[in-house]
């Protein structure tokens, strides 16, 4: 990629960062409050009565899940909102009439979403650490930073690209929110954020294994706690495969999409 080709991509990424930074309260602080409430209600109040088979505190168990939930939700919302607001205001067509390629658009928007997701995920982790310290007098020792970041990056990119695909496909706000409500939220909540596979009925255990989010979330849990419901290599394989499939969907979606305003 020549410098002249690389700069348009960098500018779109930079624009995405500037965009979510301009609405910092909505994009970063709001998810932070949500995560804190989850930690308080599930981690502390209800968590005292939940026993996990491997004897780790429930608060420690849900922190990786909440971190990944923050990454995925925010990556998805960042890219989808960017496209939808562009469709609404009309400036989406700038991406088509300027020399940006489809691959550059996908990567720039995905990196924008990933950056926001990582920011929220990191803040959620530190808030989780504070809750943990207050309750147990020590901090959680991260077991493998490399694994942790690999899964956060794959998950964030995948969801940002998924958000982009849905936003390009959607013809109305209703369609966009329907995907969020009927597909994304169930997948996240049933992906093992709040529970371990071990605690489920064998039927639901089998069904959950078809949910790619289970592998993203367990990868992050392995990175932080060194424990996972699925093998690490399986989690890595499924995560990479999901990213590849979603990338192809995103590329196809852009190729077929209309960049004109709603």
């Amino acid at each position, binding site marked *: 990629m020549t410098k002249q080709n690389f700069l*348009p991509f960098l500018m779109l990424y930079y624009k995405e960062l500037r965009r979510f930074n301009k609405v910092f309260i909505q994009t970063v602080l709001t998810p932070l409050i949500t995560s804190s409430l989850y930690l308080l209600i599930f981690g502390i109040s209800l968590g005292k009565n939940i026993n996990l088979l491997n004897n780790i505190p429930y608060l420690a168990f849900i922190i990786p899940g909440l971190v990944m939930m923050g990454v995925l939700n925010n990556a998805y919302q960042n890219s989808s909102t960017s496209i939808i607001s562009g469709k609404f205001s009309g400036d989406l067509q700038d991406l088509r009439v300027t*020399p940006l390629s489809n691959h550059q658009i996908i990567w720039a928007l995905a990196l924008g979403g990933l950056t926001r997701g990582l920011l929220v995920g990191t803040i959620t982790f530190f808030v989780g650490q504070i809750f943990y310290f207050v309750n147990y007098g020590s901090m959680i020792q991260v077991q493998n930073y490399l694994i942790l970041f690999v899964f956060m990056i794959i998950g964030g990119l995948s969801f940002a690209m998924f958000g982009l695909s849905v936003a390009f496909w959607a013809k109305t706000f209703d369609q966009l929110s329907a995907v969020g409500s009927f597909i994304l939220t169930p997948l996240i909540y049933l992906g093992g954020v709040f529970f371990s596979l071990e605690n489920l009925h064998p039927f639901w255990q089998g069904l959950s294994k078809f949910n790619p989010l289970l592998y993203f979330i367990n990868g992050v849990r392995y990175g932080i706690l060194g424990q996972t419901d699925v093998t690490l290599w399986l989690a890595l394989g499924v995560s990479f495969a999901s990213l590849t499939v979603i990338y192809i969907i995103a590329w196809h979606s852009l190729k077929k999409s209309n960049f004109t*305003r709603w």
Partner: protein
Amino acid sequence: MSVPLRIKGLVKNYGSLEAVKNVSFDIQPGEIFGLLGPNGAGKTSIISCIVTLEEPTQGEIEVYGYNVAKEPRKAKYKMGTVPQELIHHGFFNTQEILEIHSGYYGIVNNKERINYLLHKLGLWEHREKKVRQLSGGMKRRLLVAKALVHQPKLLLLDEPTAGVDIELRESLWEFVRELQKEGVSILLTTHYLEEAEELCDRVGILNHGQIIKIGETKKLIKDLTHRKVTFQLKTQDKGLEHEYKITIEGDRHIFSVPYSKTIEELFNELSLTLGDVKDLSIQEGSLEDAFRYLLGGQGE
């Protein structure tokens, strides 16, 4: 040699609707070409195909020799577009929008050009305003500035003066003339036919997705319209019967005279001398007359 724009056999269908039917034309370097036609004639569809917002059903489009379907990025560096509809850009101010747009063309430090455009288009005082704080005319000027940040050699203006007041329209056209002097080739669509007549070197008249006439603006007017010649005679005893006479209003005899006929010939055929005439007025044919004539012939 490659020309700024070459369109060959362009067809664009939306489902069963044939919006553009086998359109071909080209634009020469430094030329202002007007694409004129009633609403729904297919003007915006053609521009959308040029800038790759729409995929042609059939046909080829080349910008400075680059096929927009095969080498879109190279073609896009050469052209700038002012869309018909206003764009709002919720998050950024005027200057930021121009910086971002420059970046899309791979230009990082473009302050000099941006400042020039902000001054030139009367946006300097509004550079820190968000787009929603700008008036309609200012938004339109911002679109022009965006289209020009990368100094394109081909400028596509899709109804750039729609809803814009007279003063701004005049200043915009003045700027378009300056761009032409700098060697920029311009494709223009407008509903203001007087302006098109004044600005455009050549025009193409589009109706129902087809180009029904294309040519030099002045020649097209001469070929398709008549001059309106009105005589007021000193005495009423002359009948002045002639095939070109269209009516009498009081003591005014009105003729519709083709450009092939000179006023001298008309005088001779009417057996008139200047001494017989109290008053004489000649109204030249206009692009609007030619436009009406052509669309009338198409059953409009």
